[in-house]
């Protein structure tokens, strides 16, 4: 789609640009930094380099080294100091370079960040955002392709979201930064620079609430729920199924903690069938949680057990094998067939 021509009389067009997910995140950060001088960006290589994915490109140049911090190389340090800065009144946005490198910070995230409000019964808050590029499919070496979002979604006190398109990328970043709760934003790194996903982002629109899921394609034969990097796979499956005369409903979960399963329940009550897609391993995961709750809420509507299409219950394999590990169109359609033929 061509970008609408900017015309001074047409404010909608003036505020709307077509962009990738990566650029939308960058614009979201920039707008938040302009709106509030207390917003800081911190992480490894986020300054001069603009981050290894260039999501923070240009921010240090425009806002200075005191607002965009190239930190020492230590994730526990990044999150731990962000908590201190937040207590002091700042709103730090931390970048973790790749999801596989977040674990040195696990202690600060689970012991301090998630619990500060509860421990002080609201006297302290920790409005820290942690940005985490995640997911596979980029042909990388170990620790660069994982999906640890379930681990964090399991922690009470922490909020977790994942974007799958430029509009959500922009707005989730803005909403996460203005949230008084700590928010982790899992960003689908494979899709950062996808030109196929470029979309117009209207920065004056009213966004959906941060913690809401959304029906992105209507259908009645079966429901697919997915998020982040799995969303395009779900949509492709729906397109392929349509060619065979089956209309699939696709829901973008968007918020992983808290989950917003109302739209999923409503959909499953109509379709009777649910396929949940995620790159993460399935055991004790977000997909287990969705399946459990749908079976609880929609028991009498279900025509088939909830199907899950996920990474295997193994460590992420060498990337030459990742096409097997990652949910793809065929595996999703196979699961849809299983659900329909049950």
């Amino acid at each position, binding site marked *: 789609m061509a970008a609408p021509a900017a015309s001074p009389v047409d404010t909608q067009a003036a505020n709307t640009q077509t962009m990738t997910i990566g650029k939308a995140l960058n614009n979201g950060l920039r707008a938040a930094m302009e709106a509030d001088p207390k917003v800081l960006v911190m992480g490894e290589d986020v300054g*001069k380099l603009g981050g*290894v994915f260039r999501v923070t490109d240009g921010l240090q140049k425009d806002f200075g080294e005191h607002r965009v911090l190239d930190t020492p*190389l230590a994730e526990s340090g990044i999150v731990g100091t962000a908590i201190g800065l937040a207590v002091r009144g700042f709103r730090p946005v931390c970048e973790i370079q790749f999801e596989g490198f977040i674990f*040195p910070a696990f202690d600060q995230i689970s012991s301090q960040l998630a619990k500060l409000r509860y421990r002080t019964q609201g006297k302290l808050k920790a409005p820290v955002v942690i940005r985490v590029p995640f997911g596979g499919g980029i042909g990388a070496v170990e620790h660069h392709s994982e999906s640890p979002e379930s681990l964090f979604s399991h922690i009470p006190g922490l909020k977790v979201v994942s974007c799958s398109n430029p509009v959500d990328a922009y707005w989730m970043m803005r909403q996460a930064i203005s949230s008084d709760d700590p928010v982790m934003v899992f960003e689908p790194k494979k899709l950062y620079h996808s030109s196929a996903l470029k979309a117009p982002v209207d920065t004056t629109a009213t966004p959906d609430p941060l913690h809401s899921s959304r029906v992105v394609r209507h259908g009645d034969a079966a429901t697919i729920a997915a998020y982040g990097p799995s969303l395009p796979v779900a949509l492709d499956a729906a397109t392929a199924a349509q060619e065979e005369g089956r209309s699939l409903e696709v829901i973008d979960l968007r918020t992983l903690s808290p989950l917003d399963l109302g739209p999923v329940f409503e959909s499953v009550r109509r379709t009777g069938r649910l396929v949940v897609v995620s790159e993460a391993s399935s055991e004790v995961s977000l997909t287990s949680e969705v399946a459990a709750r749908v079976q609880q809420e929609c028991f009498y509507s279900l025509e088939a057990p909830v199907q899950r299409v996920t990474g295997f219950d193994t460590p992420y394999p060498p990337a030459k094998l990742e096409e097997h590990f990652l949910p793809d169109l065929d595996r999703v359609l196979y699961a849809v067939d299983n659900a329909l033929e049950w």
Partner: protein
Amino acid sequence: MPSPEQWTRPDPGAGPAATAAQPSPEQVIAGLRATTEGGAELTQLLTPEGERLADSRFDPYLADIDAEALRGLYRDMVLVRRADRESNAMQRQGQLGIWVPLLGQEAAQVGSGRALRPADMAFPSYREHGVAYTRGIDFRELLGIFRCTDHSGWDPAEYGFHPYTIVIGNQVLNAAGYAMGQKFDGKVGNADDAENEATIVYFGDGATSQGDVHEGFVWGAVYDAPVVYFCQNNQWAISEPTERQSRLPLYQRARGYGFPGIRVDGNDVLACLAVTRWALDECRHGNGPVLIEAFTYRMDAHTTTDDPTRYRLSDELEAWKLKDPIERVRAHLARAGGTEQDFFDGVDAEADEFAAQLRDFCFTMPDPPPERIFSEVYADTPAALDAQREEYLNYLAGFAGGEH
């Protein structure tokens, strides 16, 4: 050099204390900045011009290094560099997913690696292809990681070379633990030195900021572990210069942990060999740990996905080219006499052959089979995982039979 204690404001009325951004003149003289070249503190045995400097402390560790042995070190470095450049080129041609170049760090890696004995153990990060080579690992065995067919490759016990570690700093604690084990097993301080062992662990300047590295230093110190912490300060952690990690030259950190720290010219293969031999010797005799900071330079990008023009100037690279680790040995050998042009030509020809073999091997490396995804997750595989494997392989077989 004055000690850090003297850097604090001496007189309460004397104005604001100095900071890293605005050091006092004394601090500048004291070498406050982490990247200041060590001056007198830098152990160097072979100058960039190829002049051999006498050193009463470290020369005894080079007693066996005659011209023939030095030619061997030269050959090692040339082969390693050639294999590194070939691998970099193969990444550009799409044969490798990524390559992590070691260009410029050949002396630090070959010198320290050649200081090890077979029973010693080395824990690398991810750039130590030159150390792998000195441990007897065929360069071809490194390619699987970068072609993304494998997560490691060689048998660590066979070569005394642990798998590469990508998560920055993790291996420093693992190495400290291994060294504690060497000590618990009675492999330290024996009268018969052949019984003794030591461990060396490699990490970068950036890694020194990680909590794991701090803890690794603490553990090694508290248990008097026979571990050499070998930090290759190549001046950069991706786009961040060493000043982002430390105010103090890194080797000086050792003092706070209670063991010796030394800065060696990381582009001087003789100094790296001698100093590492000394450090390992200290460890084997129960005087470990030791921190070595090899002061060197990452002459290429961080990896093949990095673009250093975004964050550093080419003058810096030009200045370091004059300190090239291989050129100085070549100059020294040529000047000292006894090494004919034939030798250098022979090594170059051998390097070409080495690279050609690497290339042939890489181009014909098979992809792993899908079963590999499920293998060796556990010693005792849960039934559910076996079932998942079977289900997936049947699903794939269904495609082959045209079922789906």
